[in-house]
């Protein structure tokens, strides 16, 4: 009997493929809800791990970042090859690999496979998008191809959940030893020039004398990729002597007619052609298919650009229109819950905490769940149908005038949903300077956390006028304009950063354009679910805590005895239902209102607020808005929770069940003018469009740039922009007569 650890025989399988081959769909289908997302220790690359559903033995599936090749140039690609070679700390080397391939684009996709099979691990090949192979009329002889390559092939349509069971069975077979690694004489490397194989051999030997044990594939990459990831590693471990030896080896190879890096790609594509020759027949390349017909319009000189702007505009229009109903329901249940609490709990600190702190705080944020879900649904549809890469294609020239590339476009576009995944998506940008500029301007994109702030203010203070028979609303137009503010400010900002902080040559773009397809319901559902869960859990934790803190600051240190006595008196009066007591009721209400107002003015919150009021007055704000803006440092949408709590604490008794919107409209300066004019509302919105009030974003910048300097820089420059922007907005709007 052996004394093995119980978990030590757990198998792990890596999932790898080119970008956009349906890898995430396959991963989700294989692992269900068991997926965990984290970071690889020591590096800022996302690690996605799940358990294979339906396997008796626990099998771990590692979803690696999408890549075209094992030649590592970006942080993502370096981790991919490190994990596959077992060189990534904290991750045991996988026992087997699943290579997912876009079967409609075999030649380019099999290039990666030709590199993977040299890792000497069992490999399963998944031909995904099989539905489109059949639709488009490709002819692939799977069994002959599988025999020729020497690897099992399974066909799937992952987005429709077809063929998943066969993949599962094959993975189980692979981990129980049913599939062996490919013999090395069947790989593309076996046809490499002898000169190269010898150089690789002697470099490995040299590294060994220095005590550096390197897998063969990494030695190959050191030789082939000039200034690549592995050359840097070799330099770190073996010093300049190794780098010199590598450079000399390259010169020797060059003179013997083995051109680097040309020979590798040549041999690999040669290997691919050999495998597929006679077994794969694709429809004529230059045939105009339906995707091309759509493209002719969507990337047209004028129409393409107009379509892009119109599409974005329509999305924000529909968010305001569609979300009206579910918002009403949530608002109603919030008021209902507050009513229940007031019925069951006697006046006092607990009642105030629950009703004014928790419910008013969280409820006012949760109201915006429908908008968030709708926004993410639209983004997921655009991504999944293939339009996003077209949008990058259309705007690339504009990006290049400010020194960025279309590669920065996708991270920036996803920052419209949330800057955190947006900043993480910058890892795919090869140029470090481009990446830094993109990281620094990504938080200017109007994320979904700003949406609640805009919606609240727009619906309360922008006239509900519609044009064109109700199809075009002024509120929707203002909402769209607010989303443009950040993007417009980002243009000169990016130009400035690129010019003065990160000067250097223009970067490359080089992007694959996939043909259009119908989005898959599974994918859409998965994306929206992920974001909704994240939003709700944020409301339940971060916003919950801030709400309680703000409530406490607004509740203490005042003496609440007078208020509570008045409340009890009022409640007993109303309960008795005696109409003759109207006068007494009015008296009690008046004393409650006076007490509430006095208490919040004299609370910690009130004291702090009065101190900063001179600072925010030029923006058209009173101290309550100022405090709420500062308290929203953890996350922008917290301002709503904070305002909800502040106004609920200080609200007039007969309005306590009113919505936040109505409470805001009722707010008055001491001289009786309403606090909120259209100018004030616009000034708040512009402030939130430009400010960096989001601790998660700043932490992400810290993690991605590995320094406190850049999050600090972001916070300072964005807050300055926000203050100036809000002041300008208020001043101009007041001048235009929106100040009252």
């Amino acid at each position, binding site marked *: 009997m052996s004394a093995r650890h119980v978990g030590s025989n757990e198998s792990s399988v890596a999932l790898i493929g080119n970008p956009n081959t349906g890898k995430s769909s396959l991963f989700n289908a294989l692992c269900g809800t068991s997926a965990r997302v984290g970071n690889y220790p020591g590096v800022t690359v996302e690690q996605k791990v799940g358990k294979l559903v339906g396997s008796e033995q626990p099998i771990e599936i590692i979803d690696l970042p999408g890549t*075209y*090749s094992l*030649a590592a*140039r970006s942080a993502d690609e370096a981790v991919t090859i490190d994990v596959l070679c077992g060189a990534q700390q904290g991750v045991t080397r996988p026992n087997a690999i699943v290579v997912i391939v876009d079967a*409609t*684009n*075999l*030649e*380019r996709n099999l*290039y990666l496979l030709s590199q993977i099979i040299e890792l000497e691990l069992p490999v399963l090949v998944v031909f995904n998008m099989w539905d489109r192979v059949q639709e488009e009329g490709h002819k692939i002889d799977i069994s002959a191809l599988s025999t020729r390559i020497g690897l099992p092939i399974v066909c799937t349509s992952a987005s429709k959940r077809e063929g998943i069971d066969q993949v599962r069975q094959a993975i189980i077979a692979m981990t129980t030893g049913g599939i062996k690694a490919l013999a090395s004489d069947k790989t593309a490397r076996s046809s490499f020039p002898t000169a190269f194989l010898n150089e690789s051999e002697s470099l490995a030997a040299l590294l060994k004398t220095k005590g550096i044990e390197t897998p063969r594939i990494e030695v190959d990459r050191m030789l*082939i*990729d*000039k*200034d*690549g990831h592995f050359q840097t590693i070799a330099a770190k471990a073996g010093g300049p002597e190794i780098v010199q030896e590598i450079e000399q080896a390259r010169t020797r190879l060059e003179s013997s007619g083995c*051109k*680097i*890096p*040309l020979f590798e*790609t*040549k041999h690999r*594509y040669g290997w691919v052609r050999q495998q597929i020759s006679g077994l794969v027949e*694709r429809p004529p*390349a*230059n045939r105009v298919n339906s995707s*091309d017909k759509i*493209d*002719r319009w969507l*990337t*047209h*000189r*004028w129409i*393409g*650009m107009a379509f892009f702007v119109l599409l974005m505009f329509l999305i924000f229009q529909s968010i305001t229109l569609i979300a009206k109903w579910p918002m009403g329901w949530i608002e109603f249940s919030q008021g209902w819950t507050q009513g229940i609490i007031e019925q069951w709990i006697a006046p006092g600190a607990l009642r105030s905490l629950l009703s004014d702190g928790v419910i008013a705080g969280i409820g006012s944020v949760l109201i915006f769940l429908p908008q968030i879900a709708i926004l993410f649904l639209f983004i997921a549809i655009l991504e999944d149908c293939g339009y996003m*890469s077209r949008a990058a*294609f*259309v705007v*690339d*020239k*504009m990006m*290049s005038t400010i020194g960025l*590339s*279309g590669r920065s476009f996708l991270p920036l576009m996803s920052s419209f949903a949330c800057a955190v995944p947006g900043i993480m998506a910058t890892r795919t940008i*090869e140029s470090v300077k481009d990446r830094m500029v993109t990281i620094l301007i990504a938080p200017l994109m109007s994320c979904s956390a700003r949406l609640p702030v805009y919606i609240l203010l727009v619906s309360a203070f922008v006239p509900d006028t519609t044009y064109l028979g109700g199809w075009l609303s002024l509120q929707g137009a203002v909402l769209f304009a607010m989303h443009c503010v950040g993007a417009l400010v980002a243009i000169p900002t990016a130009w400035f950063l690129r010019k003065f902080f990160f000067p250097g040559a*223009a970067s*490359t*773009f*080089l*992007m*694959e*354009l*996939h*043909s259009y397809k119908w989005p898959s319901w599974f994918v859409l559902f998965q994306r929206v679910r992920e974001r909704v869960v994240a939003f709700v859990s944020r409301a339940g934790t971060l916003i919950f805590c801030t709400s309680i803190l703000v409530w406490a600051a607004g509740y203490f240190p005042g003496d609440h005895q007078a208020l509570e006595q008045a409340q009890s008196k009022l409640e007993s009066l109303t309960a008795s239902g005696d109409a003759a007591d109207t006068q007494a009721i009015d008296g009690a209400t008046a004393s409650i209102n006076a007490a509430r107002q006095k208490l919040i003015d004299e609370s910690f919150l009130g004291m702090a607020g009065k101190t900063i009021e001179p600072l925010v007055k030029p923006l058209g704000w009173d101290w309550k808005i100022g405090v709420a803006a500062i308290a929203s440092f953890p996350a922008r949408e917290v301002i709503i929770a904070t305002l909800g709590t502040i106004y609920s604490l200080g609200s007039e008794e007969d309005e306590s069940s009113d919505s936040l919107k109505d409470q805001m409209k009722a707010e008055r300066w001491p001289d009786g003018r309403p606090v909120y004019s259209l100018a004030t509302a616009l000034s708040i919105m512009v402030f939130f469009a430009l400010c960096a009030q989001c601790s998660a974003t700043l932490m992400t910048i810290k993690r991605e740039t590995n320094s406190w300097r850049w999050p600090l820089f972001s916070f300072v420059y964005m807050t300055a922009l926000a203050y100036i922007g809000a002041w300008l907005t208020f001043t101009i709007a007041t001048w235009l007569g929106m100040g009252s």
Partner: protein
Amino acid sequence: MNSRGNPLTLSELSPGQSAIVDEVVGDDSLASRLMEMGILDGEPIEVIGRAPMGDPTEYALRGYRISLRRNESDRVLVSLLP
């Protein structure tokens, strides 16, 4: 050859034209990226269309579509197909 007697580059082709790749110039990471995407000597490549502002350009090769900026397609020497 183009009109100035220099080798013809991919960036000089107009939408609808087809060519055969002769060479990718250079050995830096851009060159190897282009080659990895399948742009190798002897491969036919077709210009599909330009983006609204004239750059980048969409190409078809090996049965898929790729978008290249002018500074990238400048690196690819080609011979025009009739």
